[in-house]
């Protein structure tokens, strides 16, 4: 497995459960020792004990299932952790950023699951990190809190924080990441930008619409590749030409193409294809 991340990027690590996402993150932040290979985080080796204190004061980590002292208030926990860092972010600023202003003086045990997750993220950024690891940061959040977390990640990225994200939500990855790596069985199955992953930008485009009343399939100006009930599907590499022929035909005949949609393979389709492929073969593709 080999990858590099540039400063200020949002980098996404994807893969099914057990593919090695958390292990990779734990090696990068120095919690686990790697068996072999070369790792540099912020220019230093996280496996070297002497680097760890330096690294931990510049790297924020939000893992899954981390506990927080439930008897402390949100502010107490953040102030405690802020004290560990040489250049911490102001605690009030963190509380504001993660949207817990109303809950600042509430005990952690009184927070909802989503609020606790936001506190986790707050603890990840209180040290003002150059690099932030987020392991499934929005799992369990309601849609509004998810969007707020996205905004937060964008803000941090704009301020120059490098973000390394793992997620099961493809819309999240598409909205945030500039670079994606798909892991499968501890190897890289594919990597690229979200829009080009696995040749997604070059793949076929699916055009579909409901067949107009009184029109038979054979009347259409282009041959459909599939038909589901009233729904016509055309899969093509030359979507412009097909669309042009279809729409000019419809305009001339004054026919409505109800529910016309043009879609590329979604990131999820690509992801499922990649991970299914490598699940089937015993040795996943290397990259």
């Amino acid at each position, binding site marked *: 497995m080999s990858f*590099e991340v540039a*400063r200020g990027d949002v980098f996404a690590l994807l893969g099914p459960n057990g593919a090695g996402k958390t292990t*990779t993150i734990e090696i990068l932040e120095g919690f686990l020792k790697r068996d072999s290979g*070369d790792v540099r985080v912020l220019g230093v080796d996280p496996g070297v004990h002497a680097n760890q*204190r330096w690294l931990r*004061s510049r790297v924020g980590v939000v893992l899954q299932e981390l506990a927080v002292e439930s008897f402390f208030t949100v502010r107490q926990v953040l102030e405690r952790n802020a004290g*560990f860092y040489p250049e911490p972010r102001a605690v009030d600023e963190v509380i504001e950023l993660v949207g817990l202003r109303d809950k600042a003086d509430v005990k952690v045990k009184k927070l909802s699951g989503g609020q606790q997750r936001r506190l986790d993220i707050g603890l990840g950024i209180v040290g003002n990190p*150059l690099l932030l690891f987020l392991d499934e940061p929005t799992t369990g959040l309601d849609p509004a809190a998810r969007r707020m977390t996205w905004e937060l990640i964008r803000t941090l990225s704009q301020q120059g924080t*490098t973000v*390394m994200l793992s997620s099961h939500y493809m819309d999240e990855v598409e909205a945030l990441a500039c670079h994606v790596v798909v892991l499968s069985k501890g190897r890289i199955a594919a990597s690229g930008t979200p829009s080009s992953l696995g040749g997604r930008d070059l793949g076929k485009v699916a055009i579909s619409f409901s067949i107009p009343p009184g029109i038979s399939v054979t009347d259409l100006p282009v041959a459909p590749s599939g038909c589901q009930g009233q729904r016509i599907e055309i899969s093509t590499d030359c979507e412009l030409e097909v669309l042009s022929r279809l729409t000019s035909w419809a305009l001339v005949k004054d026919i409505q193409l109800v529910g016309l949609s043009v879609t590329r393979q979604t990131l999820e389709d690509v992801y499922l294809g990649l991970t299914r492929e490598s699940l089937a073969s015993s040795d996943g593709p290397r990259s």
Partner: protein
Amino acid sequence: MSVITPPRKDHTRTSDLRLVLHQVRYEQKAFWINKVGALFTIGFSVLFLVMLGATNGKQTISYLGNITNDDYYVPGFIAYGIMSACFSMLTVNIVVRRETGLLKRLRLTPLPTWALLVSIFISTAIVAVAQVVVLLLIGRFGYAVPFPREWLAFLFVIVVGIASFTAMGMAISSVIPNQETAGPVTSVAFFVLLFLSGLWFPLQASSGLAKFSNFFPVRHLLLAVRAPFEQQPGVSPWAWHDLGIVVAWGIVAAVVAMRRFRWSPHRN
């Protein structure tokens, strides 16, 4: 693999002293926030002393030079106070924090291992010393038990006791795999040893029970704490033999604790 961000050229890091003081403050906060737990830890030794003193405090113990039961109980419960704070309370505290993932979370911050351990040690010592002071005052003013004849020896025993039993607490916590058993296992082991070591009733040095409990550090700490209280001339306030055995246990425990200390829960 590599996550490249050009490092900022800075050499700032939080000063070690500030870091430890900061963490000690939150260790103390965590202890005192749980008022029932705090009262239980500190109050237990006081409660025992008051109860036993009220029951048979003025009886004398012939084979211990005719000292009264109160004279016997005050040093005994001072030793108990040290052991309950540094051993039972600490063990449960560490196991619960480790198994619920609280230690792992701290591991992700720049707080170094030694700073966390030192902070826990200082915080535990504060609780132990608080108990010692309360017990001394109750003994002196409630039961007319004189203060230690030799303060230096007394302070030395307290420091040795706190250090050794903290190491033992750390060692035991490293072999207990889950938080459900931590409380029962430590309490039972601790109370059996206390009982056999003669905390509640004096043991004759020649008895089989005394010989058995001489193997363990509990009885030796009881004896070592009592020595500076001895008012008879000719009896040394420095119980070197007992202190030596307590320290030996402490050193072995410290080695075990350092080798086996872990941050992450066993379930992972």
